[in-house]
């Protein structure tokens, strides 16, 4: 049986399996002791979504993490080398190194221990530097997801992707039902390092005749102390002529709740319809401060993404609609200044639409072309992109 990249890109594989990364398109042998693989994505874009200062700061939203726009022209979206070593039937270690667009250095992305107690087979424990798994959008790389661009939800509410030092405990309560908890160090937006973040989630997998359905609900809370938008503050140099936005800091709590589902239904032997959906509510309460200003801050942000798609043989046509609603309240002497400096003055509902055609050229190679209408900034933007994804199992025994 050949499993295609396309299938893994369309499905959040591994969500209901015990913790592990999403490489199941590569026909991984579950009993193999050592597996080494690689994945790579590269894309050329016709334009870049940035404001007049060359930055991607969505009005009405405190942003951070790795929520960076693609660059105009060709770029390597990500390149990863990973390995999984299982020295006992119930114990494995997983490691991945890689690089992302905008980074020149190689970094350790994952290094964690996966352990299933012999006496409690329904439990699975993972500990180390790992990806969050509470949602299909929680953590992903361009080379392992359907669209090359990170979902707007993830960009807006957790800085694109969560991989952090932490602990995850899964309980497979029923073959179709799993509960889990994740405890993170907090080295990701909207948390600040060392302040911690905690996640609870429940996920289910159902098959209603030919309809396959996966769904989940989750809640995340995070703490932040003096959290700035590090995307445009770190590396600031006075010899550079680039614009540096005001360094507004957030201290307080963030509480996020989400609901997601993915589904697919064969319409014929060669045609399959699919539908993915996720909705998130993000609340924040705390204080905004700048060198001389401070104000109390409350936010209630909502967002959702809908993705219907059709798969015909090796071809997949998909459409993604994403929308945010942003409600902010600032109270205090510095409220007006901070609202402006933090780029919070906004009455628009940022949204983005993407139409993509993907072609699975062979087991390891996929091409994708997309058109994006981007209304996340004050000035609308549209862009085209063409790219490829390569995934390869390099070694297995």
């Amino acid at each position, binding site marked *: 049986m050949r499993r295609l990249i396309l299938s893994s890109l369309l499905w959040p594989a591994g969500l209901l399996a015990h913790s592990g990364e999403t490489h199941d398109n590569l026909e991984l042998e579950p009993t193999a002791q050592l597996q080494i693989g690689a994945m790579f994505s590269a894309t050329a874009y016709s334009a870049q979504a940035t404001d007049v200062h060359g930055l991607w700061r969505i009005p009405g939203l405190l942003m951070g993490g790795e929520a960076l726009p693609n660059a105009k022209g060709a770029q390597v979206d990500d390149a990863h080398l990973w390995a999984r070593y299982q020295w006992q039937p119930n114990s494995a270690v997983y490691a991945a190194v890689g690089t992302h667009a905008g980074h020149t250095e190689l970094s350790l992305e994952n290094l964690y221990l996966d352990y299933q107690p012999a006496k409690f087979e329904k439990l699975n424990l993972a500990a180390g530097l790992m990806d969050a798994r509470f949602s299909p959008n929680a953590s992903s790389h361009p080379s392992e997801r359907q669209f090359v661009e990170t979902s707007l939800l993830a960009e807006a509410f957790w800085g694109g992707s969560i991989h952090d030092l932490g602990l995850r405990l899964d309980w497979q309560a029923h073959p179709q039902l799993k509960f889990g908890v994740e405890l993170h160090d907090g080295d990701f937006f909207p948390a600040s390092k060392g302040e911690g973040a905690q996640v609870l989630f429940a996920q289910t997998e159902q098959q209603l005749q030919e309809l396959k*359905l996966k769904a989940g609900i989750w809640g995340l809370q995070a703490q932040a102390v003096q959290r700035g938008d590090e995307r445009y503050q770190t590396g600031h140099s006075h010899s550079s002529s680039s614009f540096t936005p005001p360094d507004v800091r957030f201290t307080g709590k963030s509480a996020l709740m989400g609901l997601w589902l993915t589904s697919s239904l064969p319409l014929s032997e060669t045609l399959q319809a699919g539908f993915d959906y996720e*909705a998130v509510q993000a609340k924040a309460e705390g204080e905004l401060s700048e*060198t*001389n200003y401070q104000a109390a801050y409350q936010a209630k942000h909502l967002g959702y993404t809908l993705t219907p798609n059709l798969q015909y043989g090796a071809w997949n046509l998909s459409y993604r609609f994403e929308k945010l609603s942003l409600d902010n309240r600032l109270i*205090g*002497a510095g409220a*007006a200044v901070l609202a402006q400096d933090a780029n*919070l*003055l906004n*009455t628009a509902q940022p949204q983005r639409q993407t139409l993509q055609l993907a072609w699975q050229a062979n087991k390891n190679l996929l091409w994708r072309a997309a058109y994006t209408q981007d209304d996340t900034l004050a000035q609308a933007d549209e862009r085209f992109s063409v790219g490829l994804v390569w995934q390869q199992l390099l070694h297995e025994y």
Partner: protein
Amino acid sequence: MNSRGWLAIGIITIMTSACVEQDSQTLINTGGLDNDRSFNWNIPANYPLPVVHADNPISEEKFQLGRHLFYDQRLSGPANFSCASCHRQELAFTDGLAQAIGATGQKHPRSAQALVNIAYNASVNWGNPTTVTLEQQAPIPLFNEFPVEMGVNDSNQAQVLARLQAEPRYQRMFKAAFPNETQPIHFANIAKALASFERGLNSFNSPFDQYEAGNQFAITQAAKRGMNLFFNEKTECFHCHGGMNFTLSSFDRSQSFADTEFFNNGLYNLDGKGKYPDGGEGIFEITGKPEDMGRFRPPTLRNIALTAPYMHDGSIESLDAVIRHYMRGGRHITTAVNAGDGRANPYKSGFVRPFDLSEQEIADLREFLESLTDDSFINNPRFANPWAE
């Protein structure tokens, strides 16, 4: 096809999507800080108001009293000198001299400061971090002895007050400004009235302000180029002269903390170890800390084209020369007194570093600075000499 399944998905999607939309908005509550906009501040509504101290609330009566006192020579010891002698409206309330000269002819080590938006000053003097209110500042020129400014002292202050009490207009104005006092003509109230007048000297109507308000034609193309140079990491100008008052040393009601900023900009280096001339050593004179040698408060650049000569001691004659000073990263004096290489001053601010500009860029930057001149401020009859009316 499983129609019930799709139906269920459709219902869930519609319901949750309906729940995850709301109007985007950002509500701002400043806690009623704009309540006293009834006073004629000469400050646009979109700018925060300056801080007013609780023991001297602003009023039109106090402002007008302060204006009369400001222009009144009878307030000086010899009755020949007023605040306006060193603070002339047509020069944005400075005097055009390198160093001010007081009522007795004594030269001041500092250049008279422009009185532009000083209500926002986080600290008031060129080089004193402890004087932070206009009420603290107002008595200093009245009673200063080293050097003498207005020349009021123990021997003549009763005479000065008697002159004011003899003026019918003051009898009426002091009572209106301080209605709860039976004998309101005294120096504490004089200081409060002067502070109130100075607090009202605000300038926000330059061509640059009009450009910021949306009039694309309010400033020239050269000024726009100059503005880009000003707000550029290459020249670093905005780091010390940023914000609505073009100075980092600015404090308003929206702020929780005041920055009493002072910088050494490489004017002198008498001994190769950072020494500035005696009497002009900046906040070092107050703190005694070596690192404070030569550190002075960055003044506002609003109306800067009117306030030459420049620096705390008026030692640079023109805007062109100021720009070239910063291009060189400081001043190297090779002849006459005060020789030394200020560029190598160990206490110089890190923002003062050499950079290159073409002659065209220098002209552009100068034109931007000239676009900060507010003609309505220097011609505003509200700020003019009331005794001439």
